[in-house]
């Protein structure tokens, strides 16, 4: 009797699964909608609150968010375009990758669309480019554990290598994008900011050999860098500013230095053959045209918005954690995307050989 009930239950479950499998992917798709892929979590929530919800309210166009890691989005978008089955409209891509040839093959060239922003004086000069519109900029930088108020704190990459003056474990990223670690090594070795690119890879690895034994964490995800700091796995590390800011908000004793920082941004890219192309462009325009929206999102994420007007609208607390114009001019490094993209396979290969 019981076994028969189980059989019935299984049959029913099978039917449901089969029915679900053959259901059209976008059942009764809303007429006015946009699908955007983003990296999930707090990032999505901030964008939804500050950007998507006000947009839907104004235009009636619904915005659906799909969550994935940057690498997954990149691969999936490329697969969609190759198989001619595009179901996303927009996705977020790192500033550097957005300048690559592979990115161009998957996304629409926005040059024509960008012309309408050329007269907007509040936007930074690279706010809208062929590879996508600038969402925000943030930094990968040196962070350290605040121990004693009087003590000197590490400020430059050379300090990160100085394990006598600043003892404790070190943390570096290991997420298949090694240029920022190599660049930090070269700066620590005395290479000047203006002469950093093209990177002297051999010299960088030599310098990295020196610190290898002190690296207690090679983090792969932002979450690992946070968890590692909480657990005391490292005292000085190279991590993302957004994560450092989140830890500061939690009350952890963390400090950072713009004297050792790289500027990295996210771009909003339009996939070739996007099903809701016009609506998607409206959403991009809504972002670039609205300093209030940008200010709100960046207040939550502690990022730098593309509009200078938006910076002025941000809270004092958020603005304090942003680099000053002076710091940007003297020490914040803007990576050479062209060089990095051209050498990405080589960098990754050398990195794999070195790190394992």
């Amino acid at each position, binding site marked *: 009797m019981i076994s028969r009930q189980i059989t019935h239950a299984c049959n029913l479950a099978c039917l449901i699964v089969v029915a679900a499998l053959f259901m059209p992917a976008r059942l009764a798709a809303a007429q006015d909608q946009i699908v955007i892929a983003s990296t999930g979590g707090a990032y999505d929530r901030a964008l939804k609150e500050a950007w998507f919800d006000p947009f839907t309210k104004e235009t009636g166009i619904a915005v659906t968010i799909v969550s994935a890691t940057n690498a997954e989005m990149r*691969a999936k978008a490329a697969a969609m375009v190759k198989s001619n089955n595009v179901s996303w409209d927009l996705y977020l891509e790192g500033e550097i990758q957005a300048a690559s040839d592979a990115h161009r093959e998957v996304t629409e060239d926005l040059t024509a669309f960008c012309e309408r922003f050329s007269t907007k004086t509040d936007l930074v000069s690279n706010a809208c480019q062929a590879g996508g519109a600038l969402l925000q900029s943030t930094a990968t930088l040196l962070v350290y554990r605040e121990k004693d108020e009087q003590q000197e704190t590490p400020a430059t990459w050379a300090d990160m290598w100085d394990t006598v003056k600043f003892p404790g474990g070190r943390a570096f990223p290991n997420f298949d994008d090694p240029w920022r670690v190599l660049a930090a090594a070269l700066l620590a070795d005395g290479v000047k900011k203006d002469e950093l690119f093209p990177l002297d890879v051999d010299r960088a690895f030599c310098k990295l050999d020196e610190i290898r034994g002190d690296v207690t964490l090679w983090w792969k995800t932002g979450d690992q860098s946070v968890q590692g700091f909480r657990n*005391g796995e490292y005292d000085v590390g190279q991590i993302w500013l957004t994560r450092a800011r989140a830890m500061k908000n939690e009350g952890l004793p963390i400090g950072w230095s713009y004297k050792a920082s790289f500027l990295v941004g996210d771009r909003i890219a339009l996939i070739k053959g996007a099903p809701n192309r016009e609506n998607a462009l409206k959403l991009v325009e809504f972002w670039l045209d609205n300093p209030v929206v940008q200010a709100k999102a960046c207040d939550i994420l502690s990022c730098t918005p593309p509009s200078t007007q938006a910076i002025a609208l941000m809270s004092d607390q958020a603005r304090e954690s942003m680099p000053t114009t002076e710091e940007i001019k003297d020490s914040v490094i803007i990576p050479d995307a062209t060089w990095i993209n051209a050498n990405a396979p080589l960098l990754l290969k050398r990195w*794999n050989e070195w790190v394992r």
Partner: protein
Amino acid sequence: MNIEPSSRRALVTVIRPRNASRYAPLTSWLLTLPLLATFAVGFLYPVSKLVALSFASGSESYLRLWGEPLYLSVLTTTAMTAAAVTVFCLVLGYPVAFAMTRFKGKAAIITAACVFVPLWTSVLIRSYAWIVLLQRNGIINDSLQGAGLTEQPLKLLYTQGAVILGMTHILLPFAILPIYATLRTLPPDFARAAANLGADRARTFMLITLPLSLPGVFAGGILCFVLALGFYITPALIGGPGSMLMATLIGQQTTVLLDWPFAAALSTILLTFTLIIVFLFRRALSLSKGFQSVH
């Protein structure tokens, strides 16, 4: 319509079974057809596409692969890791399978639950559980320090040892279940006969039970090994920079560099390697006398 009696008989034998314990050829083909079709569409087609993609620019991807010591060395590490995991799974899994055949009532239910519940839990969750246990101020380090065994927290997480531990945990049911299935089919008379002839328990086990259960051990071993070769999530979460496996490299080429022909070439190599291993295992199996005496 009239059908010749002889051809009619032939038709009947194709559709209807010759004896009750077997299906007629056509019926068995019809019954397996849905599976074969799914297999062809869902597996053979994509895999052949993948192999074709790896040859998209001739044999360039393969030449590059052989030219780089990194890839062969990672393939070796992958095979070694998988072999270590397989050995641990078998050594740890056999006693559990053996116990499962002896337990009755509540004990049997609890053991079965201990085997199945982890199997039904997501690999991601189980890998995260190991992070909680192994991290710097995790349960293991806290207890070691609390007991005064270590002064400094040990580096347990993000090591090759952690990867092997995590993978063994995840693959253990795949070793236990085939061994259990084989042990269960062994008639208890064999062991009784051995005891009757004066063999003690250890001798009975070594001479009768263990050899007869070897097919299950081989089946479990090969399942573990083949699955371990393709592990991706667990090494990514609990492995360090030293635990670079083949799947990690394939992932890099697929998602970071978008070099799909090269990723396809790496996958084809891994697939070929896996097939060779499976083939060798089968050869070893058919040579084993213990195997033939059971099936």
